[in-house]
């Protein structure tokens, strides 16, 4: 199991299209991917592969999220999500 924390920098946060990108990226891995929004409610965990679940977290610009990945491709999943979130997810 691996955990990483990222700061959301894109203006739209993880809503709509960026959320869809995030979910698609997470779903591409075999590992389970859980996400929490530390800036809002650190206890609440969502399935990063479910758009509905991710949308409940209300992730906005400036929020810090925690991603917990568990499975055979966990390191690759963390890196892919980091690249996505720190890159230009709005596009």
């Amino acid at each position, binding site marked *: 199991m691996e955990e990483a924390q990222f700061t959301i920098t894109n203006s739209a946060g993880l809503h*709509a*299209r960026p*959320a*869809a990108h995030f*979910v*698609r990226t997470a*779903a*591409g891995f075999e590992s389970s991917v859980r996400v929490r929004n530390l800036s*809002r409610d650190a206890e609440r965990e969502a399935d990063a*592969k*479910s*758009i*509905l679940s991710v*949308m*409940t*977290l*209300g992730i906005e610009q400036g929020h810090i999220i925690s991603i917990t990945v568990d499975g055979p491709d966990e390191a690759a999943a963390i890196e892919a999500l980091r690249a996505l979130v720190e890159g230009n997810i709005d596009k």
Partner: protein
Amino acid sequence: MAVALVIVSHSQQVADGVRDIAEQMAGDQVVIRAAGGAADGSLGTNAEAIARAITEADQGDGVLILVDLGSAVLSTETALEMLGLDADRKVQLSNAPLVEGAVVAAVTASTGQTLEEVASAALDAKDMTKVVR
């Protein structure tokens, strides 16, 4: 290949608009067709257009049909009877809310999930959290 979607509305603008939103969310992996309005462009649903949309959308991995209300259900059921689809063609009529269901279904379909999983996610869109406080 992914599960395809058909958007049915009494209004062509609504059907096309929901398709556009869902397409933008899904990227280019998901085929989405819209069937809105009666044949002369007035408000209503058109089983023939719905049947055509289903045929065009069907890529073999299943089709989820989302409808607005009322006669959209009857027209879609009529379209399905007209098509007389073989038992191995997977087509489901969803009870999900149209916009929310289409967006969730599109994203879920784009992750490569099965028709059952896409249909179930769309139905859960009834409880979508839109205002997070």
